[in-house]
């Protein structure tokens, strides 16, 4: 079943502005873990904004083509209906946190949609457990580390029980351990709940490990698409675009150029080297 169907999507921020997205066709199936990467200004963020309805409901512009969410056009849905299906997490941990303490932050969305208290309690407990931050329930949001803040942001979107989680550079301001914690949570949500995850990031090492499909954006188009093993084998092209290649993949590529499936994790790499020898 397809969660998203994107048909010939083009977008410009204004009549005199250059096109940010130029004819994107894509279907996303339920349960996929999609990793989006590409040089800055390639249109990744704009694309994600089209997925969670910020474009056209919050930010204006000229939009052509169509985005179907569960077979309904996103243009015709209200923002609150989209919010029920799609959870969004953004890059700046500061400005997306609304409340003074963690519990308040999680119930914010639930209060907005008018749930009763018992359902709220259940959803909050569940969302905190899924993100592994139950111990932070009564903390002040200002006192959290970056990684913890991002997990609170993820938990806050999970409380609405979305089908899809859309994350725009969720780890750009995090250190490696914070990044790892965030990706572990995403992986778990994807594996255990079959939640569709769509994440844009420059940290390709993590995408290589967790994503089921990689999209490389350049100049508003998807220029490369496929399984991580296949995409990261195209290293000449990725280097031209300025996309960072996972370290293991780069090492394997230098050892032997023409392989169809390139190793991505250390374990795969060790295996690969043994085969080469």
């Amino acid at each position, binding site marked *: 079943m397809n969660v998203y169907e994107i048909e010939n999507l083009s977008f410009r921020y204004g009549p005199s502005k250059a096109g940010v997205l130029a004819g994107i066709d894509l279907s996303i199936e339920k349960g996929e873990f999609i990793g989006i990467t590409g040089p800055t200004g390639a249109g990744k963020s704009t694309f994600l904004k089209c997925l969670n309805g910020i474009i056209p409901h919050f930010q204006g512009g000229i939009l052509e083509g169509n985005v179907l969410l569960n077979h309904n056009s996103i243009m015709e849905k209200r923002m609150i209906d989209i919010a029920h299906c799609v959870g969004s997490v953004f890059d700046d941990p500061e400005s997306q946190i609304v409340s003074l303490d963690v519990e308040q932050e999680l119930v914010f*969305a639930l209060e907005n949609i008018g749930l009763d*208290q018992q359902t709220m309690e259940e959803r909050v407990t569940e969302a905190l457990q899924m993100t592994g931050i139950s111990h932070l329930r009564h903390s002040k949001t200002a006192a959290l580390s970056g990684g913890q803040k991002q997990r609170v942001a993820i938990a806050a*979107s999970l409380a609405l029980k979305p089908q899809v989680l859309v994350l725009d550079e969720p780890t750009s301001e995090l250190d490696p351990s914070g990044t790892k914690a965030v990706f572990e949570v995403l992986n778990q949500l994807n594996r255990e709940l079959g939640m569709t995850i769509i994440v844009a990031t420059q940290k390709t090492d993590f995408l290589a490990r967790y994503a089921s499909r990689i999209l490389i954006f350049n100049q508003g188009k998807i220029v490369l698409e496929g399984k991580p093993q296949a995409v990261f084998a195209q290293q000449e092209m990725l280097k031209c675009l300025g996309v960072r290649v996972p370290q293991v993949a780069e090492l394997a590529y230098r050892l032997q150029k023409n392989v169809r499936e390139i190793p991505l994790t250390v374990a795969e790499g060790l295996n690969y080297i043994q085969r080469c020898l």
Partner: protein
Amino acid sequence: MIEYMPRESPIHRLNPLAKMTWAFAVMILALIFNQIDYLLVILGTVLIVAVLAGIYREMLGVLKGLLMFAVFLVVLQVLFYRQGTVLFFLLPLDYLPVTREALLLGVAMSLRMMTVLLSFVVFLATTQFKDMVVALTDKLKLPYDYVFMFMTALRFVPVFLNEIVKVREAQAARGCQVDGHHPIVKVKAYTQVAVPLVLISLRKAEGLAIAMETRGYGSNQRTYFKEQPITRIDRVVMMAIGLFVVAGVIIRLQGFGMI
């Protein structure tokens, strides 16, 4: 910054509305009287509430801080209020007379200021902000938008303090003079920090608005996770406060409590 001080006390358990009523009642009473003994009684009641709330020590600290402003108020009255019986002169040759009335009025003004401020500090120190939000919107029926705006302003204070430090450092690293003793240098330095800060806040505001949109803000069917029930004790307290205010007004109309 005045912060919530968690304690187990009857004052903490009161509904935020009851405490707010109390703070406003103290303000009304302190404003209608200007005789020192009356004001001392009101200040005394505020301190008793602080004792009941278990935050007596912190409040004494606040009072000590306010004392400086109190002295300033007295000095102002002494310098500018010239009527009444002259007690002594500040300078030789009968310059700057100090009158009895000026002294009394100055002390009354400072007591008034201390009483009103302290009552609000006690209110804020014994009430969690989220409880106040619920009480204001759910019980007092204030529009949630405004209450939310106020809460967000509070939430962003530490964020912006942090940003100020960052911008100052960034500007200093580029050779801008962000510090100085000369007033003109200082004003210039402020603009160099203020302009980037305004731009940063606009960006943060947009981010916040987007985050709110994606989490169903403004759907007009809001519920509350923790309600703030008004108990019988709250009602009794609010009624008692109301009676005190009425009694105060009557006493004042009889002509008591004024210099």
